[in-house]
């Protein structure tokens, strides 16, 4: 069973790499935040799997709850920040002047 | 109750800060009273602490937090340790805090307005941090307290005008790098020794004979780099001048005498207690030689930079950088007289920097001019302020009745003892430059043309009605100036006692 858990953990990690690409490349700021959000939820999953591997899920599940909740907080804050304060691209509002507020 | 003196000393300002935050909303007056009381209590307690340490023949007081007695010879909890040196500096810190609180009475409403209670809370927490740094015997606890002093000083500096925020930001970056270096060094020591207590680390290193271990040497270098960044030794001094000169005036008068000096004390502590004189001054290492040369560079560069400044506070801050060079060099001279001189210079430099900064702040506030021509004809306009400034300046130059002379004397004799002539030459040269700087100011003040004292009263200075002569400066500013000037003289007159106390305490650790 441990073998399957290790394999699924590694698979999860490998599948995070394309999302990492999205974080690095963008193109918009919100793209990056969505990717960070996805990686955040997957990290909570990964924490549970690691806990099962260490035979200590009871400890890791607390981390996972805190992580998931704070992840939501982070993306909510980012969404509100980009919604009111800043346009996603700096250039649009400067050039176009109609930044849809 | 006298067993608990060290912790009571810390708790009084801590509670004072809490009370200021809780009940002092928007009212600087109440916060001022609270911080006067709390800092007054802790200065009285520190006097008692000094008397108690002097009365003990064995040398130091130990106070174990949480009552955890050492098991198998190693401390499991945190320990405070106060010897004569620590007690002297604690006394200096609390007294400077108390006197500076008197000074800040009229300045806080003028310069920070409604945030006065927060200012007083931060000042008291800064005192807590500084006293804790001096008394603690735990390397990691030292780091936590360094963080406390750093955070409070960032906030205190940033409360000034617009440029203060930027200079505080510089200080944040430099200070964080310094603190991180210190923490890395402590981490390496912990990996190698498994304990954090300063005495225990020393014992462990001694027992296992780890002196040649690469990680111990790197830990030593990292800790030294961290402490030097915090004390603004010459190549790492970039943050200091702006931070101290753009800060609110009462922050400047508070931090200039204390922060760098306490870090010098930490350096001496780390050198002699944590690593031990055998490691630091060992024959086959180049440290001693190298660092004395570094301090020589710092002294010369600091003096020249001070000579080039036309701004009063900037000039004084560069003089502080030169003084840091004195103390670092003295501590590394590998002679007891040099160490004692460096230590004595910590006290005397605190007194004279305090005196000069208060006088300079008064001059800047009253004349509204921050350049050197503010001093034109001031001996006739503000004679009392100028008397204080003169005493501080003479001490900076190093003329006999003042403490500056004696500390320089010990430093120079330490340099001669250990054969570091370059240090002696640098000291004399720096005294010469100080003489040029200060006599230039005295000449302006004595012979310069009298200008009118600032007639237009800005909103910030509304509490002071401009008038002629002595009455122009409120008593709450003049009293601290006189106390500090007096302390410069007293430290000079008491040099024999002080020197014997200091050198006795140092002899015990040097063996």
């Amino acid at each position, binding site marked *: 069973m441990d073998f399957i858990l290790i394999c699924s953990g590694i698979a999860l990690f490998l599948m995070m790499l394309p999302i990492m690409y999205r974080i690095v490349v963008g193109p918009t700021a919100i793209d990056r935040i969505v990717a960070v959000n996805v990686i955040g939820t997957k990290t909570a999953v990964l924490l549970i799997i690691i806990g099962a591997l260490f035979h200590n899920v009871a400890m890791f599940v607390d981390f996972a709850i805190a992580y998931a909740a704070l992840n939501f907080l982070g993306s909510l804050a980012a969404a509100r920040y980009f919604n009111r304060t800043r346009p996603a691209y700096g250039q649009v509002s400067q050039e176009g002047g109609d930044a849809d507020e | 109750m006298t067993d608990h003196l060290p912790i009571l000393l810390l708790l009084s300002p801590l509670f004072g800060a809490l009370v200021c935050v809780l009940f002092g909303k928007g009212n600087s007056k109440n916060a001022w009273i609270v911080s006067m009381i709390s800092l007054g209590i802790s200065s009285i307690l520190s006097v008692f602490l000094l008397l108690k340490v002097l009365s003990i023949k064995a040398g130091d007081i130990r106070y174990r937090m949480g009552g955890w007695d050492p098991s198998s010879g190693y401390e499991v909890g945190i320990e405070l340790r106060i010897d004569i040196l620590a007690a002297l500096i604690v006394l200096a810190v609390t007294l400077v805090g108390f006197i500076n609180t008197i000074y800040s009475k009229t300045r806080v409403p003028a310069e920070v307005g409604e945030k006065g209670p927060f200012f007083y809370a931060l000042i008291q927490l800064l005192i807590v941090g500084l006293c804790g740094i001096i008394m603690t015997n735990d390397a990691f606890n030292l780091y*936590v307290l360094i963080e*406390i002093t750093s955070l409070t000083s960032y906030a205190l500096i940033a409360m000034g005008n617009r440029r203060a925020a930027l200079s505080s930001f510089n200080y944040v970056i430099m200070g964080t790098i310094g603190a991180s270096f210190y923490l890395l060094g402590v981490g390496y020591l912990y990996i*190698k020794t498994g304990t954090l207590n300063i005495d225990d680390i020393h014992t462990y290193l001694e027992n296992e004979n780890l002196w040649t271990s690469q990680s111990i040497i790197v830990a030593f270098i990292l800790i030294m780099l961290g402490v030097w960044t915090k004390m603004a030794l010459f190549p790492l001094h970039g943050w200091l001048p702006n931070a101290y000169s753009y800060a609110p005036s009462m922050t400047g008068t508070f931090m200039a005498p204390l922060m760098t000096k306490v870090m010098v004390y930490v350096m001496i502590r780390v050198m002699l207690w944590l690593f031990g004189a055998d490691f630091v001054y060992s024959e086959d290492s180049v440290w001693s030689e190298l660092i004395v040369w570094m301090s020589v560079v710092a002294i010369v560069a600091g003096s020249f930079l001070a000579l080039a400044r036309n701004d009063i506070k900037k000039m004084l801050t560069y003089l502080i950088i030169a003084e840091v060079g004195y103390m670092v060099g003295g501590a590394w001279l590998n002679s007891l007289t040099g160490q004692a001189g460096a230590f004595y210079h910590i006290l005397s430099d605190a007194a004279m920097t305090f005196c000069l900064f208060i006088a300079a702040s008064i001059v800047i506030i009253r004349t509204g001019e921050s350049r050197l021509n503010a001093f034109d004809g001031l001996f006739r306009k503000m004679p009392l302020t100028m008397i204080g400034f003169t005493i501080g300046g003479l001490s900076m130059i190093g003329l006999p009745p003042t403490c500056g002379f004696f500390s320089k004397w010990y430093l120079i004799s330490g340099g001669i003892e250990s054969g570091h002539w370059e240090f002696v030459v640098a000291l004399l040269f720096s005294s010469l430059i100080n003489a040029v700087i200060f006599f230039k100011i005295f000449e302006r003040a004595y012979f310069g043309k009298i200008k009118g004292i600032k007639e237009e009263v800005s909103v910030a200075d509304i509490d002071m009605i401009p008038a002629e002569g002595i009455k122009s400066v409120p008593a709450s500013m003049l009293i601290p100036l006189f106390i500090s000037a007096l302390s410069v003289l007293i430290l000079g007159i008491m040099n024999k006692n002080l020197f014997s106390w200091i050198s006795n305490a140092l002899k015990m650790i040097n063996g």
Partner: protein
Amino acid sequence: MKFFGLLSVIIVGFLLLSATKDFPNWGDEDSPANSGPVSSFYIEKTEEKTKVPNMVTAVLADYRGYDTMFETVVIFIAGIGIIAVLRTYGSNESIPKNQVGDEGAGLLARMTCSLILPFIQLFALYVVAHGHHSPGGGFQGGVMLGASYILLALAYGLARAKSCFSEKRTLVFAALGIFIYVGWGVLCLVMGSEFLNYSALDSILPGGVEMARSHSMLAVEIGVALTVTAIMFSMFSNLSTKGRLDKGL
């Protein structure tokens, strides 16, 4: 200047790497940090002396409780410092009328938050109280609790969150947290023992000397949690409104 920066980074990196040469092996059981007298004391005696299974909590709140007190003070200073630097009192004239007030993040966010907020707060309290047995304690629980108020401010608007947790209340809570911690230590002083020596409190707490230590740890963790909660929210509200405390993000 860039060159010097690069040079110093390289030198420091070289120093740090050269130091690792003498380190004990990774996971070495006999390294001083693992089997030294101090660590073995913590590992062997913690359960016996303090009745706390999680020795991290015991080291944090009892053996090195003096450190933790100052860590809490560091957090307090961070919050007070941000207020002291950023907070602007009075004059709201510079802000256009239509920007005053903060209506939150919309219906969906409000619904979700109203569903999960109570559970987050409950979990935060659990983390604070359960620090003796599982990872957790005052700092972590305080952060969760503070985050729940930040979530409230994000979803419902800062005005709604301020009606729960006004500025005055944050200051009172922040100071009260440290007051609990330090006051607990002073209580030990009053009982005639050293500062933070919880064993002196066995006459007023039930269950003998060991349980007195255990209960006292809970008390100081609650103090830490109060301070951290208040400072988290205070920092958020000050930083997101540039010190005006009028309109959130």
